[in-house]
């Protein structure tokens, strides 16, 4: 039995039965990281000694009432704050910054006894779809080191995929959990906006940012969501709704297939893979229905106007005075930002400043907000006749490292199928099919329960544990 391959809900049972010790589990995961991570580059910071020490402490308190995350080694995306640890966001501008406090999600995981193994690599400030723009270098796909792992939570996805953590946390603004989960063959859940506190998440686009789990299966995703969700007075957009994750029957479920997510030029491998998934669901559900979401065609442009607009405001705080890097000069502010930020971050800051500037605001930003409304209204109408929407996660398969990083427009197109749910604040679950192709289930607000139930049905149907 290879411990690093098992979903953690099974490891939890083994720990309770004392068939394995927490130290044994943590040791096995550390060994895996030491074997593989030099190639994959999933971890930016790794804390094996602390993890083993914590494992030894937790060992003494194992009984049959321990929470499901007790003693489970997990990884955290390096844009989520952990007190006393670096918070770099993969950027030179925060290279030496140590966080003075922990994010709410970190406190909640620690309360459950989770062991934090390290912080994972990402696209600089979570702005990217391939995890190639980090100051620590690109994350490589664990199944083929020549390919990207997807982004921006590429490190979080890769380490779970190769067994370097039992689960991880990522952040999803326009697809940053779902895309790397799909590329690395694991499960990624973007929760309903507001369900999980953003307190302690380095802000990129505040009205879109969410924190969510990347796991080996849907049961683990549900357990992680239960642990991190819930109202937080430190986040003004936090909601009081509780996530429901008890799996239920899918017999009454109606699934919608939106035609806009299957354009004529979609890679036939992706079309075939998703059609096979649809065939698995077909006999078990109440109805399969073709639907139309015409606003989808505007969603990508809307997202890439709104998100940079918010980013340009959020990243104004990096001024060479309060955080991280400071280049002393007669123009410290400009010099620090110019040397501290990478090309993609600068591109989005300038793009965001542009769309918010006088004369262009109405022409771009205002219309983008209207696009957001159209997309949200279309989903709302669609959910009157279907319960869940099924789509591919991305219009592309994992691509070779270095091929799209110099073509930003093509890179943005990788997010075409993930940004609509982000704009509407809806929950979306990404599940792997094969060869870096994944499918996405989008549900109404707070319907994580239904998404996980469908996801679990799929996993059982194909024999995945």
């Amino acid at each position, binding site marked *: 039995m290879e411990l690093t391959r098992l979903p953690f*809900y099974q490891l*939890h*049972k083994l720990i309770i039965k004392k068939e394995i010790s927490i130290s044994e589990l943590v040791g096995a995961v550390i060994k895996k990281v030491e074997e593989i991570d030099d190639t994959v580059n999933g971890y930016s910071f790794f804390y094996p000694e602390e993890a083993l020490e914590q494992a030894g402490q937790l060992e003494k308190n194992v009984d049959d009432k321990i*929470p*499901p995350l007790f003693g489970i080694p997990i990884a955290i995306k390096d844009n989520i704050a952990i007190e006393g640890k670096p918070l770099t966001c993969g950027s030179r501008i925060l290279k030496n910054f140590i966080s003075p406090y922990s994010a709410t999600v970190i406190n909640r995981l620690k309360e459950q006894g989770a062991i934090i193994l390290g912080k994972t690599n990402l696209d600089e400030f979570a702005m990217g779809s391939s995890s190639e723009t980090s100051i620590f270098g690109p994350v490589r796909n664990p199944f083929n080191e020549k390919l990207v792992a997807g982004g921006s939570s590429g490190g979080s996805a890769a380490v779970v995929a190769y067994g370097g953590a039992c689960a991880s946390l990522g952040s999803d603004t326009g697809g940053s959990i779902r895309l790397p989960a799909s590329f690395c063959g694991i499960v990624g859940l973007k929760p309903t906006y*507001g369900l999980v506190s953003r307190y302690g998440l380095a802000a990129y686009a505040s*009205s879109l940012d969410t924190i969510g789990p990347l796991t080996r299966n849907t*049961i683990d995703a*549900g*357990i992680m969501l*239960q*642990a991190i969700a*819930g*109202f937080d007075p430190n986040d003004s957009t936090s909601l*009081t*709704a*509780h996530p429901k994750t*008890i*799996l*239920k029957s899918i017999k009454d479920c109606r699934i919608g297939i939106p035609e806009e997510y299957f354009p004529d030029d979609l890679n036939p491998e992706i079309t075939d893979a998703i059609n096979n998934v649809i065939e698995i669901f077909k006999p078990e559900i109440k109805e399969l229905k073709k639907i139309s979401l015409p606003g989808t*065609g*505007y969603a990508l*442009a*809307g997202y*890439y*106007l709104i998100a940079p607009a918010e980013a*340009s405001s959020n990243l*104004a705080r990096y*001024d060479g005075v309060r955080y991280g890097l400071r280049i002393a000069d007669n123009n410290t502010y*400009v010099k620090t*930002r110019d040397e501290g*930020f990478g090309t993609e971050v*600068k*591109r989005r*800051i*300038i*793009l965001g*400043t*542009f769309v918010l*500037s006088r*004369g262009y605001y*109405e*022409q*771009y930003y*205002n*219309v*983008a*907000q*209207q*696009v*957001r*409304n*159209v997309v*949200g209204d279309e989903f*709302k109408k669609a959910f009157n006749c279907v319960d869940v929407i099924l789509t591919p996660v991305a219009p592309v398969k994992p691509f070779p490292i270095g091929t799209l990083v110099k073509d*930003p*427009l093509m890179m*943005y197109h990788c997010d075409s199928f993930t940004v609509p749910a982000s704009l509407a*604040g809806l929950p979306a679950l990404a599940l792997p099919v094969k060869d870096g192709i994944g499918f996405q289930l989008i549900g109404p607000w707070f319907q994580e329960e239904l998404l996980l139930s469908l996801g*679990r049905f799929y996993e059982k149907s194909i024999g995945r544990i």
Partner: protein
Amino acid sequence: MKKNRLCRKTIEEIANLAKLKTPSEQFTEELIKIIKSFELIQNLDTKKIDSRGLSFIDIRQLRPDKPEHTDIDLPTLTPFIHKGFIVF
């Protein structure tokens, strides 16, 4: 709607506003290409659309006046098999 002309000078001014150095010519050309590709959203018929953004979320329904107790009953989360389904 007034259409503003987009040129290198505009991008230089914007970079200055964003407290960044004047970008290279290639960077500017790429950026102009990206912005131009986003002009498609102006084809959207916006006359009848609410411009406030996310107006379809009634936040008041989701937030009470004071926070609720949000502790989770952890022992009930241990997965088990029930009628052929794995639940937790």
